[in-house]
């Protein structure tokens, strides 16, 4: 990069050598990005590639550890989203920044309302809202409607309108169409094209390849926290782009998979036409004893809801769930983890759902088996100690004794405690919600070995992971989830990176949605 500063006007926005770490995890490494006015710039990458960190840094939500950002050649740093917006860089978050109890007009000018005699000028605010809504193609949204009364798709449009009210020069859309219907997408697209014509720079993050093909002028692919390549749109095929997004070297060794025997026994867990609100549709699948079945797909397609539904957390599910061929009513985690059902859920967020951080390792480990180590409500301490000792040894949990608060352990060991806590119940069906996120390679490796051992011992395992390598390395079969339904089932050698990403993006499978 040796463009002399005098030769040409600097690009509208440039990011130079930006890095960001969360704890020990590298989220963004030495990222470079150049954004030009009047162009739509698509950012591509699989889960955890660093896209969302990039956006958060640009929008002032988090501060970078290293590197600099230049706006029209001048270095800038944003301490808050409002500061970034005031400087002309505005992000459309996914319905995170709308205040549910306020009206659309209130929300659009929330950060900088028009004032008269020091008070909010409601008439002026109304005009601003109407104009912004019209620019965002949401003329049918009434400025006085409350956000909480709007359907999701309209809220997304209000988000865009709110961002436009800042009169930004760079507009960032993070999955800006994920909640929209096809007709709304078309409307948003025409709005975005018009904004481009007006000279705005648009940064567009989407997982829908056809949208990128239709909209983008420029594409940048991220992988492992680095930008891999920038290229003009239309110069690469979908398949090439998918290749670019993969390209990861294997970082962990996986235990060998056994030959799968065709088993006549009823599957340990079977779902028939499971549905829940708009998030799960007609999900049918089975997991046999000794089988590790993966849940793939992009983040937030309904995998989490599926696991919660199975574990009895969701109300009003439709369809049926069978365990060992017998229908079961799953009303609560307590019912799901009862001896007859024997389910366990290793939750997604160990800090809020898996553990009580200030409590000791001992107390955490025995928390899910209190009913089994007690009689008449009184805990049998010897039995507790025995079970815990076994489990600590089995999982090689490293800590200064079992009476330290679990919050003092490393992330990997904390995750082992979560898993151990549930293994204490000797579950026959184990549901895992992205259990290796944010932990070290060594522990990951141990968890893979453990899963296979449990399966070999007869457990049925349903395993959601955002890491494709894991799905390939660990699973006998993978169900790819898209938009609340299973779009593809991959088995054995069909589980490849290419197949996983392609079906996750739904570019190769049958088209599930009406064309935009």
């Amino acid at each position, binding site marked *: 990069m040796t463009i002399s500063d005098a030769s040409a006007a600097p690009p509208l926005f440039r990011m130079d050598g930006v890095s960001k770490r969360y704890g020990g995890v590298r989220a963004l490494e030495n990222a470079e990005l150049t954004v030009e006015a009047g162009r739509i710039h698509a950012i591509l990458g699989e889960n955890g590639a660093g896209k969302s960190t990039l956006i958060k840094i640009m929008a002032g939500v988090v501060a970078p550890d290293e590197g600099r950002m230049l706006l029209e050649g001048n270095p800038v740093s944003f301490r808050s989203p409002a500061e970034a917006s005031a400087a002309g860089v505005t992000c459309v*978050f996914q319905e995170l920044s709308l205040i549910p109890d306020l*009206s659309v007009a209130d929300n659009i000018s929330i950060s900088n309302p028009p004032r008269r005699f*020091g008070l909010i000028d409601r008439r002026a605010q109304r005009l601003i809202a109407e104009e912004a809504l019209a620019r965002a193609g949401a003329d049918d949204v009434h400025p*006085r*409607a409350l956000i909480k009364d709007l359907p999701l798709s309209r809220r997304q449009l209000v988000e865009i309108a709110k961002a436009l009210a800042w009169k930004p020069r760079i507009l960032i859309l993070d999955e800006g169409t994920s909640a929209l219907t096809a007709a709304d997408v078309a409307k948003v697209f025409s709005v975005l094209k018009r904004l481009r014509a007006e000279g705005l720079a648009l940064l567009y993050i989407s997982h829908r390849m056809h949208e990128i093909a239709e909209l983008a002028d420029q594409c940048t692919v991220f992988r492992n926290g680095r930008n891999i390549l920038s290229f003009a749109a239309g110069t690469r095929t979908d398949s090439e782009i998918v290749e670019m997004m993969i390209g990861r070297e294997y970082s962990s060794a996986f235990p060998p998979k056994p030959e799968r025997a065709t088993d006549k026994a009823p599957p340990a867990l079977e779902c028939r036409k499971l549905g829940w609100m708009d998030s799960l549709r007609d999900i049918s699948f089975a997991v046999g004893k000794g089988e590790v079945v993966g849940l793939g797909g992009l983040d937030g397609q309904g995998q989490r809801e599926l696991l*919660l539904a199975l574990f009895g*957390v969701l109300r009003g599910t439709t369809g049926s769930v069978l365990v060992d061929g017998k229908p079961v009513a799953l009303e609560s985690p307590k019912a799901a983890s009862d001896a007859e059902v024997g389910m366990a859920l290793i939750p997604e967020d160990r800090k809020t759902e898996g553990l009580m951080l200030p409590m000791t390792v001992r107390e955490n480990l025995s928390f899910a088996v209190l009913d089994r180590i007690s009689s008449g409500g009184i805990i049998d301490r010897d039995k507790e100690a025995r079970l815990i000792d076994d489990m600590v040894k089995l999982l090689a949990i490293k800590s200064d004794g079992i009476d330290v608060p679990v919050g003092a352990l490393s992330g990997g060991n904390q995750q082992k405690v979560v898993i151990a806590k549930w293994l204490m119940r000797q579950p026959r069906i184990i549901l895992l919600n992205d259990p290796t996120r944010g932990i070290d390679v060594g522990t990951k490796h141990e968890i893979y070995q453990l899963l296979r051992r449990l399966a070999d011992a007869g457990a049925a395992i349903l395993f959601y992971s955002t890491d494709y390598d894991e799905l390939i390395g660990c699973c006998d079969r993978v169900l790819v989830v898209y938009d609340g339904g299973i779009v593809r089932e991959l088995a054995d050698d069909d589980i490849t990176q290419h197949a996983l990403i392609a079906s996750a993006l739904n570019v190769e499978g049958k088209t599930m949605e009406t064309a935009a």
Partner: protein
Amino acid sequence: MSEWRYGLNEQRGTLMAVGIFLVMFVIYVSNHPAGLTANVVQTASNKGVLLAFVAMAQTLVVITAGIDLSVGMIFILTNALASWLVLGTPLETAFGVFAVLATGLACGALNGLIVIYGRLQPIVATIATGAVFFGIALLLRPFPGGSVNEDLADMMTGRIFGVIPSSLVALVAIVLLIWVPFSRSVLGRAAYASGSSEVAAYMSGVPIRRAKFMAYTLSGLLASIGGLFLTFFTYTGEAALASGNAYTLFSIASVVLGGVSLFGGKGSAIGAIFGALAFRTIGDLLFVFDFDPLWQPLFQGVVLLVAVSLGAFGLFRVRNRLEWFG
């Protein structure tokens, strides 16, 4: 939906409170032995206005998703103070009024400082500051007593043109002077926003802390206006623990009846005012129906219990049980 429907939707809680109040008041007046006379209205208004001020005070804090269990004590403290200071020449009286209001403002600001910058839970913090406020009130008035500038008191509790209760006029004036500007100011908007969703408010760059501080401070001011009026009505000051506790409790009941969400972000002080008037009228209904006044505390307790339980029905719509845990 047409324009007026949105207006209706925005004001639904308030309108509901107005409706409850009107129904109750009609029942009350039509069964009152004296009927609808200026006197009856004046008495009802004088009693209702006291609670209305305290309820307004509570509303401001509740909007930010907080709670102030010391409003009743600020009310009592400023009553005790007013019985010392609001006396003498017009100038001295004016100074006294000013000092009483400043005290209320300071009490509210103290609550705000402790809750927002000290990061203590509003419940415990305001119970503790409430004890301090009550203690000071007790220092000022170990026994009921004191007096007040009676001309001013009579003016504020009498009638204008022989018909309109002047306490009601004062209430309207305070609404116009404090509530309306607050609710339309940037900080007022921010108070609603941070009560509705603190995360979204942060993402939108709303001045959360300043807004909350403003809400607590103005809450103290409003409670002290209530205390001032209590002095006008009673001509004395009294550090009555039971009365302070009752006003705190009734302020919460009024807020709930007035359609203000205890989870924050929703409702208006106007609604709470009508909630307060309705609550008072409900309590007084027992008298016109010749019930033993002994039943009044129980009756008011039950009204409160029913009112807070009604808010729970949204729970049955929750489809993901994890949402129970916030």
